[in-house]
């Protein structure tokens, strides 16, 4: 599809706003609709669009297998680490109130980090799944 000029130009124009919108959904998640899962899917869709238009091999150069797997694992680790941080700071697992001096700020910080972990894992997983189906490269 790399020879279709319109598709190429439009997708080039669209990919940065898609990523930006993903980040908006990510960080606005605790005030409005959205959150880590949705943001992760939107973020991954930018890569999937790129792969559809410019080919799997080019997309694999942008997001190699090790990178997406690392992103995927780091997201889960971040989630669990926030929980463990709660234990280390004297609360229960996933108790955000102890993360900062002020419980309200703590809750805020906790859910933001957790959602960021979710977003990283979901986008990593989505990209990995797409590449595995498209490329059969394991």
């Amino acid at each position, binding site marked *: 599809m790399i020879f279709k000029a319109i598709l190429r130009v439009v997708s080039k124009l669209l990919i940065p706003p898609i990523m930006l919108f993903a980040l908006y959904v990510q960080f606005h998640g605790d005030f409005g609709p959205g959150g880590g899962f949705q943001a992760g899917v939107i973020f991954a869709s930018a890569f999937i669009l790129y792969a559809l238009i410019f080919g799997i091999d080019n997309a694999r150069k942008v997001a190699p297998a090790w990178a997406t797997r690392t992103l*995927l694992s780091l997201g*889960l*680790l971040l989630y669990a680490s926030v929980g*463990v941080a709660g234990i280390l700071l004297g609360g*229960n*697992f*996933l108790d955000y109130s102890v993360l900062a001096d002020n419980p309200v700020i703590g809750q805020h910080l906790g859910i933001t980090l957790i959602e960021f972990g979710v977003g990283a894992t979901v986008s990593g997983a989505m990209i990995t799944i797409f590449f595995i189906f498209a490329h059969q490269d*394991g």
Partner: protein
Amino acid sequence: MIAAHLPALQVVVPLMAAPLCVLLRRPALAWALTLAVSWVVLAIAVLLLLQVLETGPVTYPLGNWAAPWGIEYRVDMVGAFVLVIVAAIGAVVTPFARRSVEHEIPRDRIYLFYAMYLLCLTGLLGIAITGDAFNLFVFLEISSLSSYVLIGLGKERRALTAAYRYLIMGTLGATFYLIGVAMMYMMTGTLNMADLATLMPAVADTRTILVALAFLTVGISLKLALFPLHLWLPNAYTYAPSVVTAFLAATGTKVAVYVLIRIFFTIFGGVEVFRINLIGDVLMGLAILAMVSGSAVAIYQNNVKRMLAYSSVAQIGYMVLGVSFATVTGLTGGIVHLFNHALIKCALFMALGCVFLRIGSVNIGDMAGLGRRMPVTMASFVVSGLSLIGVPLTVGFVSKWYLIQAALEKGWWPIAVLVLFSSLLAVIYIWRVVEVAYFRPAPEGGPAPAEAPLSMLVPMWLLTGASVYFGIDATRTLEVAGGAAAFLLKGTP
């Protein structure tokens, strides 16, 4: 400080180790991490059991949100017992896994194998520890999804179809469970099991709850492979990698039986479901059919792994039979058989893993003369086989003794006879393997297979030894299982 957080750490430690395995990538490092984690997990499970024995149920509100609003982890006697079973099997299977996995899994996928194995362990432990009906569904999915992957990693391509079939059946089961939970939530407005138990008697007679109970029972019966919903099990166990079969046969179905027990005796604890409708009778009928038909079909199998898979269907029948009595003796028999059968089946599948490592096949025809060539492995197979049959001085005898006693207590002697009959069928299929391995000459020519490596023999014999030890001195296991049964039948928790 740590002691108070053991319930959370029980699940979080293996959960965090799984992504670390992906980051480490090197097979040896991933294995070492898995080994360390599986031993830590066992230590936590044992500490939790001791804590429960000493002070009664332990609860842990996640994120400090009090139950019933937040998710609560709740460890009581049954939960702690199942945690110890799963953790112990995990701790024994991991050292066994290194050589077997190197042999059966492509090298570049080994780290992913261990990551999935840890996730599966996480899910199974989570099911046993959570006190929240919806959280249980989440852990059920974590353990199921990872076990589909583990089964699909088998060497033959048929492993993929087996995994796919299990995926379809398992997803149906999980969906039915979720529908059941949603209906209970509709009627009671809560997902916490203890809270459900107190609210249930008031709404128990409604049709919604009756339908919910039906969905829950059928859904979990799919997961635990109760006859006639067992069709996914034989292929999944046959084509999965040896380590996976040993691990899942000893833990997966046991945890599902635990969920069934939880539903009947905790969530519906105040209602006495078995008295007001037919569930007990239906379960008992299906359990007996499973016992007899599973053992009978096992006799005709030429693949020994498939033979033991059908035997598992029969053994699940014993456990469900114990549950369906709904008496202290019967439930004790069912719960103690969770532990006993885990020891037996894990050891048997490990022996087959050793055989597969050395001769590359687990067909009965290829095992001729193995009794002399792999004496240590086959001796373990024989001892565990005797235990499966239920010979005195082995754990199999203890469970069957309790089940027969429970049947006689109620005056249902035909059931006692059927338990014995099914054990006699087990004699036949175990004997077929023994006959080929010990009394048939090894094939001429070709290299003689050597004994399996020590790293596989030691875990296998640990389990075999345990199945004799707990057969001779069953006081500890029976104390916990009996305590758990009495606790469950007390009604509301």
